[in-house]
């Protein structure tokens, strides 16, 4: 990639993106494709890098249960995913996107009742067409997923769901960025961003120098809060650990996306969907592994006896309400924040419409529902605001 970063001879970028995970990389490529000269600051992988631990769902159902703007953004991104994946395919690989539809499988009647209630709540807040999720009974579930066991009594189905290879997507984005004539990749951890004055650029400082840019976007996941505050940005995100269990390769039995089991293109299974609030701790635990495996075998009994080959823990980047935070600083115009927990699902939107909003400097007005101003509102005010969004 690019050599050591020095400012000597380097033009000021139109936009600097801090963070080269799925969010930052998709935004950077999108901005460059819109014509901007982009500097992408890549701190490299570390233990808390969410993009290295993703499950790989492009998941629309359940998104924005009380916030239609989020349901619609997720659905638009899913609709854009096939084109996004095609635009990244090269001789080294593809994001392996499959727009299969998705099921959330209920084990037992209590779970199914819970799913039905959640769907009902959503219908009261959102338009029915926002994501087309519907309850399916045991018979339809077996038609769509014949391998389910007797405890699977139904579930939720959404035709817009799918799945992709998250590392394949990240690597394809990075290959496209390195090739792109308007992108410079700086391999450094940005330690601080100094706001510019009127018509003066921002300066992004790292251990070996600095980067200058007319505008700056913080897309640094768990690294965002420390950079954001000085720019008048509100990156209130917390880590939520998810553990993933990987099995040996198994024969094909599951093409559709499923929130707890994903069969990868290699034939291995990813099993997951644990949620733990344990701070910055990516260790795995026997108890979570056992409960993930127990659910997988209850769902698909033929998997009993399949061998586990490894496990990992990763940290979701969660805002207080789970929605993305898109913010343009009013104190330091030109500085923006983009953070979300659905880096895979939203990648296609980040590379297209959200990048366009950044290039046009219209992030705040186009994504008002995702402003952190919502955290200061009462529930009623928030409902009024999101209906307008």
């Amino acid at each position, binding site marked *: 990639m690019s050599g050591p970063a020095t400012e000597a001879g380097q033009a000021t970028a139109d936009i600097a993106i801090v963070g080269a995970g799925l969010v930052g990389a998709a935004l950077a490529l999108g901005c460059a494709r819109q014509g901007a000269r982009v500097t992408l600051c890549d701190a490299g992988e570390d233990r808390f890098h969410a993009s290295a631990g993703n499950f790989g769902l492009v998941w629309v159902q359940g998104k924005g249960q009380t916030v239609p703007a989020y349901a619609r953004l997720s659905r638009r991104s899913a609709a854009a995913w096939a084109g996004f994946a095609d635009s990244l395919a090269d001789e080294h690989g593809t994001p392996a996107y499959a727009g299969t539809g998705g099921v959330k499988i209920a084990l037992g009647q209590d779970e199914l009742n819970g799913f039905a209630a959640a769907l009902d709540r959503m219908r009261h807040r959102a338009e029915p067409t926002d994501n087309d999720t519907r309850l399916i009974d045991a018979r339809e579930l077996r038609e769509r997923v014949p391998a389910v066991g007797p405890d699977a009594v139904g579930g939720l189905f959404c035709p817009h769901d799918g799945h992709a290879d998250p590392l394949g997507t990240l690597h394809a984005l990075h290959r496209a960025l390195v090739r792109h004539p308007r992108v410079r990749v700086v391999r450094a951890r940005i330690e601080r961003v100094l706001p510019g004055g009127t018509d003066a650029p921002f300066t992004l400082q790292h251990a070996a120098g600095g980067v200058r840019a007319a505008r700056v976007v913080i897309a640094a996941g768990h690294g965002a809060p420390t950079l954001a505050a000085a720019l008048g940005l509100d990156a209130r995100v917390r880590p939520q650990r998810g553990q993933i269990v990987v099995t040996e*390769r198994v024969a094909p039995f599951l093409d559709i996306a499923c929130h707890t089991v994903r069969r990868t293109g290699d034939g291995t299974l990813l099993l997951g969907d644990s949620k733990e609030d344990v701070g910055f701790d990516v260790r795995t635990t026997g108890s979570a592994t056992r409960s993930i495996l127990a659910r997988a075998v209850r769902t698909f009994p*033929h998997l009993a006896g399949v061998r586990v080959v490894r496990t990992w823990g990763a940290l979701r980047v969660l805002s207080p309400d789970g929605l993305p935070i898109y913010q343009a600083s009013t104190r330091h115009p030109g500085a923006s924040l983009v953070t979300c927990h659905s880096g895979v699902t939203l990648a296609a939107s980040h590379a297209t419409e959200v990048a366009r909003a950044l290039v046009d400097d219209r992030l705040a007005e186009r994504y008002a529902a995702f402003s952190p101003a919502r955290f200061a509102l009462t529930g009623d005010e928030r409902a009024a605001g999101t209906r307008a969004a």
Partner: protein
Amino acid sequence: MSGGVWRSLPRTDGIPVEVVVDGLPVRAYGGETVATLLLRLGHDHFGRHPGTDRPMAPWCLMGSCFGCLCTIDDRPGSQACLVPVSDGLTVRTGASAVAGSPDTPL
């Protein structure tokens, strides 16, 4: 099946055993693994990749790469590099290297 690049070093410690590979009895020696036996017999691949259907062969010989998967004693998806040979062991190569399907549970 013969004439591969691998051959065993002269050895005196391994007890001779008979292993059935793809239906044919072959001589093996206690202490070697199914993977080294197959390589010595000249197999240039053991199974096929379940995603790409490309032929697969061992890379690491220490349990990490899953390139050596084949069916051992009717257990599909066995790692040949981790299974020592024993008398009467049956080995099948050439199939898609995966564990059980819903129709043929493990």
